[in-house]
């Protein structure tokens, strides 16, 4: 294998993993706050279509990404209002959000089908970014660097910052957090908002970077993989990075193997992998009772209402 080929394959791994990582980072923070938002797929679609519309209309792809974050965050507030303020069931509301996002994105994007738009520019100078070897460091979409910085940021926030400590407290024991005076609902609103914005940016990666276009159901179910990855990573940002890249690597290597004329997995097994691996991880981390740090946030999916 030539170095150029190795770089090309690694670039593909990065491209596959990045949107999953971005969406999953958002959902990780949401779940750490004790909220389960199953509407990731719907929010990603809203982000994808908004990004494409704004980028086509303004000719500025980065504005598209920003608009995607805003639009998806807005849609996450529907979920937030229903589940946090009105204490509706999170599972059902999340599913409804996905139905909503699928429908709304298709409606909004109807007149943008069949065209393409400019993609995000490069971060580094062209001679570095297009070098056959050095591009592995410098040739990625800005969103790739964003995803890595956000991984670091979320890790720092959750484990080092005071605000992160409060967020985790809210997710682990809402009533205790409430009794020491933290605003449980407020914290959860912010977490849901962040999760929405990240899902939107992940969606924009599909419509502006990977395949710059809009079509209905463009994200093809990857929101669910993002949710699986959060659990696979046992709610830890570092492991999430690992998990997303591991998953991207398996997909890429399988496609490369097929393209080279041999194949090591039935396609159905490959598609099932993230889910099977997640169940395995769930079983492992749950059985080792001692390491409570790895377990699911105790208040996950449980609604909270301060009683007077």
């Amino acid at each position, binding site marked *: 294998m030539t170095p150029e080929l190795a770089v090309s394959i690694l670039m593909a791994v990065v491209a596959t993993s990045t949107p999953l990582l971005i969406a999953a980072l958002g959902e990780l923070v949401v779940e750490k706050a004790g909220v389960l938002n199953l509407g990731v797929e719907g929010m990603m679609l809203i982000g994808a279509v908004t990004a494409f519309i704004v980028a086509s209309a303004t000719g500025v792809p980065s504005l598209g990404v920003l608009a995607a974050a805003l639009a998806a965050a807005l849609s996450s507030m529907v979920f937030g209002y229903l589940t946090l303020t009105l204490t509706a069931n999170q599972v059902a*509301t999340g599913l409804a959000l996905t139905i*909503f996002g699928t*429908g709304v994105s*298709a409606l909004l994007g*109807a007149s943008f089908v069949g065209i393409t738009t400019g993609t995000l520019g490069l971060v580094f100078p062209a001679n570095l970014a297009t070098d056959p070897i050095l591009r592995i460091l410098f040739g990625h979409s800005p969103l790739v660097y964003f995803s890595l910085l956000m991984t670091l940021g979320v890790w720092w926030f959750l484990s080092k910052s005071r605000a992160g400590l409060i967020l985790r407290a809210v997710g682990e024991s809402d009533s205790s957090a409430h009794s020491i005076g933290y605003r449980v609902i407020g914290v959860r609103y912010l977490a849901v908002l962040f999760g929405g914005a990240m899902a939107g940016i992940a969606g924009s990666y599909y419509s502006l970077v990977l395949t710059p276009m809009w079509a209905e159901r463009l994200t093809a179910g990857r929101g669910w993989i993002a949710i699986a990855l959060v659990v696979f990573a046992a709610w830890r940002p570092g492991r999430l990075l690992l998990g997303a890249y591991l998953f991207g690597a398996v997909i890429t290597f399988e496609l490369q193997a097929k393209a080279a004329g041999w194949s090591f997995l039935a396609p*159905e097994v490959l598609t*099932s992998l993230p889910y*099977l691996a997640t169940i395995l991880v*769930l079983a492992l981390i749950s059985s080792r009772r001692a390491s409570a740090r790895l377990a699911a946030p105790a208040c*996950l999916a449980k609604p909270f209402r301060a009683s007077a």
Partner: protein
Amino acid sequence: MALVLQPRREPSKAMVWAAPVIAVLATLIVGALLFTALGYDGFGAVNAIFIQPLLNSNRWQDLLVKAAPLTLIATGLAVGFRANVWNIGAEGQYVFGALAATGIALLTLDMQGLWILPAMVVAGVLGGMVYASVPAFLRVRLGVNEILSSLMLNYVAVQLLFYLMRGPWRDPMGFGFPQTAMFSLDQTLPRVIPGTLIHLGVPVALAAALTMWFLMARTLAGFQVRVVGAAPQAARFAGFRETRVVWMSFLIGGGLAGMAGTFEVSGPFGQMVPTFPVGYGFTAIIVAFLGRLHPLGIVAAALVLALTYVGGESAQTTVGLPAAAVGVFQAMLLFFLLGSDILVRYRLVRKGAPPARALPVTASPATRAVPGAAE
């Protein structure tokens, strides 16, 4: 004169039933206005989706056939939801059950006998139970969060289906298309009303809902489910084992989902195809909540959901509403229904009105998770 929400002294019995009606009405009005503003025939759309199918006798059977699997699955899920057992893997259990039934069907393709269909139903129910017992086992033995494990298993079941259709179970006479042979007459679900599409699954679904109503209200097991959900500590004190309730919830949920899968594959489909899963397992979760986890409510909710599907198709041809808009209508309906639950425990009062004298309803885990679920 702003309105504020004020806790009720106890959950409003009237609102338990009025809230869904309010939500449906709100959807109709907001939907009509919204889609008119977007340049569609909003009122025509509401008429086509929610009214016309009810007036056309041809559509009634469509509604019943569409509502049957939703009712069956949601009835099973509601048992668990009441006990705070969150099985959201019904889609996988539905598929796995149907695959078990298909396995029997493919083995008996060349046989005849009245025993074949019952054998398929038994296999289907067992298949659903087996698949549901994975998250049940993980929860009981290892404390694994069942929402996540059951969710993941949905996708695995669908991939198993794809594999079987592409390879081992493909119809050798089917020109290479990934699907099984057509089932024989003895493997096909009979129709209960000749000349209509209404198959055996429709009355069975209704009977299942009624049976569950009776079991939950009148038997010790039903009582245990309700107590474990509403007051886990009291339940433990009374010697009810949570483990048993978890198992029971998953087995009933999985069994009914598997039965629904068997009815679909042996009835309306008449063969197994890769497009068999259409999300009934997910829709049934919504149906269970819309029906307030009450078997009769679930029957009504399943019919409302069926109405949006059936009416949505008419709206495409009569007022040219895109399929996507129908999805938005459904989502709006769900949002309003989920949101309206708050009216059960809270009431709208003018700002400054005197508060209710007693303490607000302290939400027990079950009513917190599922507003209005308490009997």
